[in-house]
């Protein structure tokens, strides 16, 4: 009896697989790898909502990109590399074909970097991913727009060198997520240590980062002048709480732009006051693009999240991520003359992407993003960030835009990219 019902249930489940809804062919297919569950959900959710709302707004306001509707489909990765790869395989051929992927995870980015050249789909990693992929001659399909971790490390060093008047004899400690994400900035920070004459120490924190007692006890012993935090998800708020526990001043702590958002500081309450971090872009919902999102999406009751969460740091990052992708689509449409573009066309769009100040204003992003220009050789486009500080309620800027030193970083990027090209047998394109 049990066996029979089991067999029947199995058959019923299998029959479900046969039917599935179709996707219209005259739409652009926008795949989106998200994590709305798991240890990194507090940070994954606002980003995913920003993307979903911006796409919904473009569909509602303009009827899509140049009149072609955008079909967005989310796939839950839980920040796990193998599930991310599964999601990528699931979505890459759906609809007309995926335009581009943004996995929001360095681990998934590394895995997909091997796959996208074969499938001819660009990989947009805005503010994360492999730092050497800024070299477009080797990494033709990767677009680490707006800044890599090497740029971030360089900007942070520039800032602390400026405020403390030189770093000679100082101590800097990096507390990092023990994954490719956290390890990315180490070579640049080590290299700078020799140049600037500070002592550098890196303390790893194991995934998911709720256990950091040992790391902070070490910090209490060595008393570094600055602590850089390269964490993600629950690790960031835990780090701030541990800093309080060992009495390390929060205003000596600097988070990378993934460790400087509301979900990182709010759980620590008032103790987080004074904590600083990099900002790729400001927070706030007073920009024209937010007015449109609220009007076309939230007033229609179709918002992906809560109304009051619109304008948070990671929400805005999601909006910018979606905007850059759709601008690449728009450029691709112009270049190819096609209405429905796929990955291969969008790569062309990225390589010719140019956002001038006028265009940014037209899009309603004035003040949110700085102008950028992607070329065949430079896939990063812009490498600027500001420092902002948490005042207990909101983020306030404490510095102007700081630009990473391209003359210092570019040779390192090129050397690392050349090593990768040699290992994989890639002949760099001539740009």
């Amino acid at each position, binding site marked *: 009896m049990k066996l029979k019902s089991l067999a029947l249930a199995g058959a019923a489940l299998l029959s479900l697989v046969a039917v599935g809804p179709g996707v219209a062919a005259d739409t652009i297919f926008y795949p989106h790898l998200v994590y709305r569950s798991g240890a990194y959900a507090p940070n994954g959710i606002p980003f995913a909502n920003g993307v979903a709302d911006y796409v919904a707004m473009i569909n509602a306001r303009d009827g899509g990109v140049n009149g072609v509707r955008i079909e967005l489909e989310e796939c839950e990765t839980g920040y796990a*590399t193998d599930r991310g790869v599964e999601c990528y*395989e*699931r979505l890459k*051929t759906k609809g007309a074909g995926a335009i581009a992927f943004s996995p929001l995870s360095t681990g998934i980015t590394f895995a997909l970097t091997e796959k996208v050249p074969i499938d001819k789909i660009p990989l947009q990693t805005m503010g994360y991913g*492999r730092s050497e992929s800024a070299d477009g001659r080797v990494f033709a399909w990767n677009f680490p727009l707006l800044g890599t971790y090497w740029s971030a490390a360089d900007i942070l060093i520039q800032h602390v060198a400026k405020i403390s008047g030189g770093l000679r004899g100082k101590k800097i400690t990096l507390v990092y997520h023990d994954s*490719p994400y956290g390890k*990315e900035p180490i070579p640049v920070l080590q290299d700078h240590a020799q140049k600037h004459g500070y002592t550098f120490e890196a303390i790893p924190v194991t*995934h998911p980062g709720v256990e950091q007692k040992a790391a902070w006890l070490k910090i209490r012993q060595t008393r570094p002048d600055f602590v850089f935090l390269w964490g993600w998800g629950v690790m960031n708020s835990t780090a701030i709480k541990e800093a309080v526990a060992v009495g390390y001043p929060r205003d000596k702590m600097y988070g990378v732009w993934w460790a400087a958002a509301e979900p990182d500081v709010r759980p620590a309450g008032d103790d987080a006051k004074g904590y600083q971090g990099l900002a790729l872009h400001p927070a706030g919902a007073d920009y024209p693009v937010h007015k449109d999102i609220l009007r076309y999406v939230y007033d229609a009751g179709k918002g992906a999240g809560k109304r009051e969460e619109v304008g948070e740091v990671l929400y805005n990052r999601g909006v910018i991520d979606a905007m850059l992708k759709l601008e690449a689509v728009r450029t691709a449409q112009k270049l190819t003359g096609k209405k429905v573009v796929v990955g291969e066309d969008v790569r062309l769009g990225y390589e010719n992407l140019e956002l001038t100040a006028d265009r940014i204003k037209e899009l309603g992003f004035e003040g949110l993003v700085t102008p950028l220009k992607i070329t065949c050789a430079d896939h990063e486009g812009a490498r600027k960030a500001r420092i902002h500080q948490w005042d207990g309620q909101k983020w306030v800027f404490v510095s102007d835009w700081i630009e990473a030193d391209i003359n210092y970083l570019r040779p390192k990027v090129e050397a690392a990219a050349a090593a990768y090209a040699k*290992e994989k047998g890639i002949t760099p394109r001539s740009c």
Partner: protein
Amino acid sequence: MIYRETGQFRTSYAEDQAIFRLRQDKIGIAVILAIAWIGIPFFADEYLLRAILVPFLILAIAAIGLNLLLGYCGQISLGTGAFMAIGAYAAYNLALRLPALPLLLDFLLAGLIAAAVGVVFGLPSLRIKGLYLAVATLAAQFFADWAFLRLPWFTNYTPSGSVTAPPLDFFGWVADTPREKYFVCLAFACLTALLAKNLVRSRIGRSWMAIRDMDIAAEIIGIRPMTAKLSAFAVSSFVAGGAGVLWAFVHLGSWEPLAFSIDMSFRLLFMVIIGGMGSILGSFLGAAFITVLPIFLNQAPGLVGIQLSTAMVSHLEFMIFGSLIVLFLIWEPHGLARLWQIGKEKMRLWPFPY
């Protein structure tokens, strides 16, 4: 009726010692192999091959590895993920540092290195048993996690700690399309299953089972516990190491130590327990249950046209999957393989059960 053995006489030793003695079983396995080797490659799309079948086959190999140790020799191990990692990083380093070696030899040597490490971490099994041994094998897991995260030599000093596999070049034949990769995994899976099946029917396998059932009795009848236990650890780690190489080289292409974390060890343990301890078929069924079912549950609401939010779907996936594990263990503690066995018994009597 369907499974009746009446009229099938075995007239030679070879027939009597065949793996599949029943005509029905022979036809069944031939059909399954034909589907796997001919049917699926022709009809499956890229998604099915790359995202479902390849990981399923690789984890089935790893589950066979653990099943040899846990199901046949009765030694609990929580270090299978570590042995997979050792295999993967050994193959990576061999390919990187000795480029003259053919890739297939790298795979084999990587398996042997994993086997050697497995023997070392299997030594405590001579003195401790059961749950205590599980804790001791946990050391292998932590050791591998630590070594591949902290000793930069293993990852060739890459700044991010993430390494990339070389192309899959087998004596000039490069497997890069999903179908070719599927064939590579299928060939390894068939080979492993065949070897494992024959091994457990041989003297070594029987000595493992004797140790599993009662080690003192086994010792008295002349089985040396040290040889039996350590050979089980060696073979199990060899197979797990091979699966690790495939997981890294064929499935992921680029990986970090997190790909072989303790989660992987637990997943493999669940595969063996749910699939059926002491059964090669059970390893395949368990691997299918643990790898394919969550993906299916994740897509099921969309397939029947129910629109749910991504977060809701993923929470439902966890809840249903978890409750299914519990229910299966209550209904059939001996695993899916036992269910299949009961099914065969029923088919033998059908349609006149008594």
